[in-house]
């Protein structure tokens, strides 16, 4: 099989090419990017058109969130956290809110549980729609982005209606959610899901049955199964390697235990398989959204009353709350010292390992033209690395 042959597993040890030998070309990719990966740069050393060494450089989007959070009241951090991962703000909001609720011993109302789940699944769909445009674009297939980004925009319209914001929703507030669903909202959700689903069918035909995409993506960026634990790989990258781990199933947070779904698992563990798996997760997200619309309670409170946010103190303690975002395990580690500001908040983004350790090793031996495609296939967002 051609696919088997392309599976090159780069050695763990980094070779140190003699840059003065004249054999090698040092080139920077980034910080601006052909895909949608955000600002990050790779320092590539190429021999001919094959990459022999790579260093990931991050920090272009470093705003010092973890420092800023120590300076702000617990509630004031709520608008801040969503900015950590631009294309997927809701997972930040959820993890932060859930961590505070756990520390303060707050139980959120049933309806908030479902609306949070809805919000996260819609976010997952929107984020994947953005990603698939980038993945296709990285292999020179611009059409997909023309469709998928528009589909994402339709999902954002739903967010706009529900939350009042397009990109930064600031909806999952500690204590619940910020607003009830508007009248007729669920109907529009289902209509939009039908449109998106139809479009995904098109994308499947055009992208996944496209000879060029297949030839370039198959076998590219093969991740062996034993890397998953060694590098802490999570999410679709791990599932495509045959590791059936999904925090939605394993931790059973929010309404997921009551929804009917199974983690999608792949076998081939290359760029094509990962893309395919993410397409499956998009269909799965649509399915979950339909289930949520069906099962979510139609009335009842959507928010627990909290103390005055200006003086809200949280009992001393620490916790780590994680959620399955599109890229894997997204988590907030919150330490409270009993004052009105967090002592320490650390954010665990799945790209941390994917874009640095895994990327640096995977890219060795890859053709320069495929570096962008490989990088997008790992689905990395630099802002969650550097925070």
């Amino acid at each position, binding site marked *: 099989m051609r696919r088997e042959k392309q599976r090159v597993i780069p050695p763990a040890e980094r070779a140190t090419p003699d840059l003065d030998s004249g054999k090698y070309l040092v080139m920077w990719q980034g910080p601006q990017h052909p895909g949608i990966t955000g600002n990050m740069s790779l320092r590539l050393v190429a021999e001919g058109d094959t990459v022999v060494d790579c260093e990931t450089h991050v920090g272009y989007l470093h705003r010092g969130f973890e420092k*800023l959070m120590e300076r702000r009241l617990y509630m004031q951090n709520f608008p801040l956290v969503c900015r950590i991962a631009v294309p997927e703000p809701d997972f930040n909001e959820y993890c932060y809110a859930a961590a505070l609720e756990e520390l303060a011993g707050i139980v959120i109302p049933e309806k908030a549980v479902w609306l949070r789940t809805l919000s996260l699944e819609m976010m997952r769909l929107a984020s994947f729609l953005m990603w698939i445009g980038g993945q296709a674009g990285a292999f020179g297939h611009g059409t997909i982005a023309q469709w998928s980004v528009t589909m994402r925009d339709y999902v954002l319209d739903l967010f706009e209606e529900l939350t009042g914001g397009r990109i930064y929703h600031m909806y999952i507030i500690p204590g619940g959610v910020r607003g009830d669903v508007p009248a007729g909202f669920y109907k529009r959700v289902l209509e939009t899901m039908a449109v998106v689903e139809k479009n995904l069918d098109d994308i499947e035909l055009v992208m996944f049955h496209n000879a060029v995409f297949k030839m370039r993506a198959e076998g590219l960026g093969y991740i062996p199964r034993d890397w998953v634990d060694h590098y802490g790989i999570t999410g679709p990258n791990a599932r495509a390697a045959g590791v059936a781990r999904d925090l939605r199933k394993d931790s059973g947070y929010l309404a997921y235990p009551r929804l009917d779904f199974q983690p999608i698992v792949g076998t081939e563990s290359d760029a094509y398989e990962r893309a395919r798996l993410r397409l499956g997760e998009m269909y799965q997200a649509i399915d979950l959204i339909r289930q949520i619309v069906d099962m979510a309670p139609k009335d009842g409170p959507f928010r627990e009353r909290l103390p005055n946010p200006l003086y809200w103190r949280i009992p001393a303690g620490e916790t780590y709350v994680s959620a399955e975002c599109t890229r894997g395990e997204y988590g907030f580690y919150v330490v409270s010292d009993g004052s009105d500001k967090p002592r320490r908040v650390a954010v665990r983004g799945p790209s941390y390992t994917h874009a640095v350790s895994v990327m640096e090793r995977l890219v060795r031996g890859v053709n320069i033209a495929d570096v962008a495609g490989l990088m997008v296939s790992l689905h990395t967002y630099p802002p969650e690395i550097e925070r």
Partner: protein
Amino acid sequence: MSEKKTIPAPLANEGLPPEERGLFCDAAPREYEPARGAWERFLNWARSESLWLLGFGTGCGAIELRPLMTSRFDMYRYGIQPRPTPRQSSVFVIGGYASVKTLKRIVRSYEQMMGPKFVLALGSCTINGGMYWDSYNTIKRIDQYIPVDVYIAGCMPRPEALLAGFQELKRIIKSGGGEGQNEYARNFDWYKANQKKVIKDWNMPDYNW
């Protein structure tokens, strides 16, 4: 621009190792003299109708460039299209906050862009620091470092607001007002001094075209 005092020029390209100095220009940029009458008006019309955008999303704002580039908002019909390299671009969109590390690339990219060049600044962060007003790693006012033609309020500005900003930019260019490049040349030392104040490891050419 009375606040922009002249500051003595530092040694050209002093941040570079000696062997590299010869590779870069060491003359300060000059002001561009507009052509006369109808010809300049024609040029301005042409410039305004083919805005080529540098595909460097510097902050959150870049996320709303994607919908703009794709079918729903379709900015190509307004004569705007993204380009991958500064050498081909005439519009730089500063998409919000700029960390010091990014600012360095912003300055370099801006200087590499061909004139006449225009800058659109998005969101609170470019105006007065935005939510990162107390961050140790983000600048507060982009106009301290490069000249800006149009500001669009928002966090983030929606694609529609961005389009409106582009329309405003076109109007400004047509009326002969897009003078950012000349302003940069006029106050070059002031801009350089500001840039060097925050970019502590200045290891790139001062005159960068």
